[in-house]
């Protein structure tokens, strides 16, 4: 019987259970078990991995290396005939001493901080309430998910319409809810409110995403822990802070990591909503980068800027992931 099996007559997999283990143990382990018709494991492994690695090398790593190379030159993509010469670390120095670049990083930091804070708090709260499992919670969870399925560029575009003080809905809705007159303020118009306008739209779009991850975290907490706490007569409040939050912390941190990386790179939505204005109050790092690279065509300079951005986010993510792993292993 086993000889038949080893010849590979194509019988369906044996039912799981002790008999399988016995059979496996009965066979000469190393040689026979590894003898398979067709490709060896090694070949399969490389066959499976290489397309991915090749694609990434071609479309992500090679361009990255090219960017590094370009960052040391004065190349401009709209002057293909001009002569290119190396400029050493000149571009990097220029980037790091440019006041506009620092303003953009500041705007990005402000955006990151508030969106992460608001989305985490709101997202976790939503997840918590959804976890109460009231009737119809599945339906409402799906409804909440809808904003995140839209294209960020299209969202930025139609929110300019919504934020228009005269013809848009937002100001009138605010007046309806809080009584502040509709024509007394303008979201994307004023220097103080514009940064908030992008934070509000981003929160609207991505809170459901955070909520989803936090919900997964909440669902992963085993029931018996709460039971034990009940037995110990711990109050709801105490349970929340000593069980719920710590055990969902890895998930919350994960959500923050994903959203943090995405918002650091944010371009589409903000570009179509405010175009970086008024002035440069909402000009995030990616928008400045796009201006330098594709409007001014200062390819060398913008390559240096891109590398600096990449190194920044890579470094920060590294530190963060290490902290996350420590929390996970608690």
């Amino acid at each position, binding site marked *: 019987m086993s000889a038949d099996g080893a010849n590979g007559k194509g019988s369906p997999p044996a039912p799981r259970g002790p008999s399988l283990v016995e059979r496996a143990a009965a066979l000469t382990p190393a040689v026979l078990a590894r003898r398979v018709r067709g490709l060896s494991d090694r070949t399969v492994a490389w066959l499976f991995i290489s397309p991915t690695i090749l694609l990434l090398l071609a479309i992500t790593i090679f361009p990255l290396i090219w960017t590094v190379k370009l960052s040391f030159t004065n190349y401009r*993509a*709209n*002057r*293909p*005939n001009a002569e290119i010469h190396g400029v050493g670390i000149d571009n990097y120095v220029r980037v790091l001493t440019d006041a*506009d670049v620092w303003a953009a990083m500041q705007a990005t930091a402000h955006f990151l901080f508030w969106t992460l804070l608001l989305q985490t708090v709101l997202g976790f709260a939503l997840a918590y309430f959804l976890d109460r499992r009231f009737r119809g919670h599945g339906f409402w969870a799906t409804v909440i998910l809808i904003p995140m399925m839209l294209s960020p560029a299209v969202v930025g575009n139609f929110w300019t319409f919504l*934020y*228009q*003080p*005269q*013809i848009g809905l937002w100001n009138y809705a605010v007046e309806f809810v809080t009584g502040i007159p509709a*024509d007394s*303020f*303008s*979201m*994307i*118009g*004023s*220097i103080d409110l*514009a940064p908030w306008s992008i934070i509000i739209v981003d929160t609207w779009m991505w809170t459901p995403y955070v909520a989803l991850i936090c919900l997964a975290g909440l669902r992963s907490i085993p029931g018996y822990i709460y039971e034990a706490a009940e037995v110990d007569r711990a109050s709801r409040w105490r349970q929340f802070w000593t069980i719920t939050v710590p055990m969902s912390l890895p998930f919350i941190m994960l959500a923050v990591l994903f959203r943090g990386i995405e918002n650091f790179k944010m371009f589409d939505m903000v570009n179509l909503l*405010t*175009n*970086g*204005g*008024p*002035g*440069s*109050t909402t000009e995030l790092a990616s928008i400045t980068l796009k*201006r330098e690279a*594709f*409007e*001014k*065509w*200062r390819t060398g300079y913008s390559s240096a800027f891109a590398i600096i951005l990449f190194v920044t986010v890579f470094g920060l993510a590294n530190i963060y992931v290490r902290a996350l792993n420590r929390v996970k292993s608690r």
Partner: protein
Amino acid sequence: MEKRVAHVVAAAALAMIVQLPAAHAQKKQLTLCWAAWDPANALVELSKDFTAKTGVQMKFEFVPWTSFADRFLNELNSKGKLCDLMIGDSQWIGGAAENGHYVKLNEFFDKNGIKMSDFLPATVLGYSEWPKGKPSYWALPAMGDAVGWTYRKDWFSRPELRAEFKQKYKRDLAPPRTYDELKQIGEFFQGRMIDGKKVYGVYLFTERGSEGITMGVTNVLYNYGFDYSDPHKPYKMDGVVNSADAVRGLEFYKSLYQCCTAPGLTNAYMSEGLDAFKSGQVAMQMNWFAFFPGLYKDPKVGGDRIGFFPNPGAKKHFTQLGGQGISVVSYSANRDAALQYIKWFAQPDVQKKWWSLGGYSCHKAVLNDPGFKSSAPFAADFLASMQMVKDFWAEPSYAELMLAMQKRVHDFVVANKGTAKQALDSLVADWTRVFKDDGKL
């Protein structure tokens, strides 16, 4: 039997081969790239005549102004084959000529009897020539345009408003001829309730991304004495760009923005202006002449309710040049057909039809025609404007120069950063750096 089959097959094959060239010729198609606005729609209609005359099908690729420069400069820089004909912005001429994007047209013009003297000189200088002032042509003037103004004639005609205005300012409520007059009218209407709704005085360009606020502010700056460089010393900008007069002009634009515009329009260009005017929010709107035919036909604010006036003056009298020329893209695979299109477009009768459909012809046969001024309520103002146009830099590094001015002006006027003098001083520094990088300084 076999021989017969072979004969039939051979005959069929021969017939097919003979067919092929003819079929191939019929498939000829040209793609024309322009901005997506009213005149583009008019051009689609006009081009049907070209197709009828030559059998060449026309395809169009229109992109709105806010992404127009981005998209098509990108296209040209990537040596894209999408566009055979390009109606590019007037300021692209320098870059397009020096980087080999456009086909030089002198030879073609000479061979086909197309004379630049048939077109308005300001348009030849602005849309076709590079270097400026030399008879080296890279485009045929296609669409004449300049910044002009519209106003609510119906509001200006209301007796109670007229009386109140006369009493306050001791003159009639009429289209302004100077910017001081315009500001007074703006203040008069600002916040006034008309027909139960609050209205505002003025609509100005404030767009940050592409060219909006620059195209707006220059209309004031030129008239206060701003210029791009010393007329005798090219590229000498210090003392000219940031002269005391220029500073005053920039401050005036900001004061106009702060006193008399609708709230929330901090990133507004052509589209928002049309929305604001058509929805009855403003009394006077700055915009390009290109939109005036459409506005005149608008059901809500057109007809008798709308009036037009050319850009007001101050110390000097200029208006910002708009408009484009039509060029042949050098990467196109259909150069001959594209040149045919240009030849057809240059004919006086085609130019006349162009004007009647809503395009602004630059041909003297149309503009100097005695009936022109009365052909539309804005025609006379258009002619007057074209006599006093002034344009931005058309250098190859135009995009960088534009972005620098966009940033400095927007930061000062809208975002309240620094003083006018600081803005203009920084602008001189920015432009100096660009020209140094270019090797022109």
